[in-house]
């Protein structure tokens, strides 16, 4: 990652305008061509510096629901359970954490009533109890990592 990539990553976290040529402004600010901007974004994705690029959808505004779930997975079963949990398209992300509750994943569903169904299916397929921790209140969201 060079300096141009660093500025690009910071700019991309702020977001692009909705217009026909959304990369033009960034290209001008960085002094590189639009093609170089898109090539660099592609490379940052390939190198997994960026995990996604595009519109970020708000599941709740789409009428869907989100919840955070935790499981206590025996170490010996961790890989198997990871595969089983990740196979559900409703699992938006999943993290291993150091704790007795060692697997934490976010469920995003298009219909709120689907959350309970997915949780039951995950419990059945993995044999692990799912602790459901939906948010009750939200105080701040704004992940921004300066590089």
């Amino acid at each position, binding site marked *: 990652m060079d300096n141009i990539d660093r500025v690009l990553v910071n700019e991309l976290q702020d*977001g692009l305008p909705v217009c026909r040529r959304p990369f033009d402004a960034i290209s001008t600010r960085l002094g590189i061509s639009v093609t170089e901007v898109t090539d660099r974004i592609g490379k940052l994705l390939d190198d997994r510096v960026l995990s996604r690029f595009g519109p970020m959808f708000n599941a*709740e505004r789409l009428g869907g629901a989100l919840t955070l779930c935790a499981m206590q997975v025996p170490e010996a079963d961790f890989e198997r359970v990871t595969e089983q949990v990740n196979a559900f398209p409703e699992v938006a992300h999943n993290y291993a954490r150091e704790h007795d509750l060692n697997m934490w994943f976010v469920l995003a569903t298009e219909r709120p009533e689907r959350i309970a169904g997915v949780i039951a299916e995950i419990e059945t397929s993995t044999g692990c109890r799912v*602790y459901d921790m939906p948010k009750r209140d939200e105080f701040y969201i704004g992940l921004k990592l300066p590089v």
Partner: protein
Amino acid sequence: MNAVLHPRPCRVDAIDRQIIMAVQAGLPLVEQPWDAVAEQLGLDPDEVLERVAAMQAHGIIRRIGAVPNHYALGYRANGMSVWNVPDAMVAELGKRVGELEFVSHCYERPRHLPLWPYNLFAMVHGHNRDEVEAGVKEIASMLHGACRGHEVLYSTRILKKTGLRLQG
């Protein structure tokens, strides 16, 4: 108290859904990405842009941008700090914790007693664990007497990170 907040859903029609499904894995990396989406779907580019702008205005699209992989950016330590504070104070305390610059997400969530007594979650990011620990100390001193216990859960691996996916 305890009511789950459900923001009012907005109507998206079949064409909006086609657009969402075309870009949910990522925006095409070309000079005019929405034209590419329009061509793929057989729509007019102006209509696609109007719909995308409307979805952003309604908060269906939070923003169009990048999700960084914080490990790759040098933010190797990510501690989910969890706190047991009185329910009557969680809204006021959560707001103050959420304002700290090193806190990326801050939520009230239900306890699962006796295993899980924590009702306030604050995600703390840092380049290393020392930075995260310093942040956690700052939260602890802010919560002071109101806190009846806390833990920090460090992530050791990203197992999956795809974001919301609509299914066809």
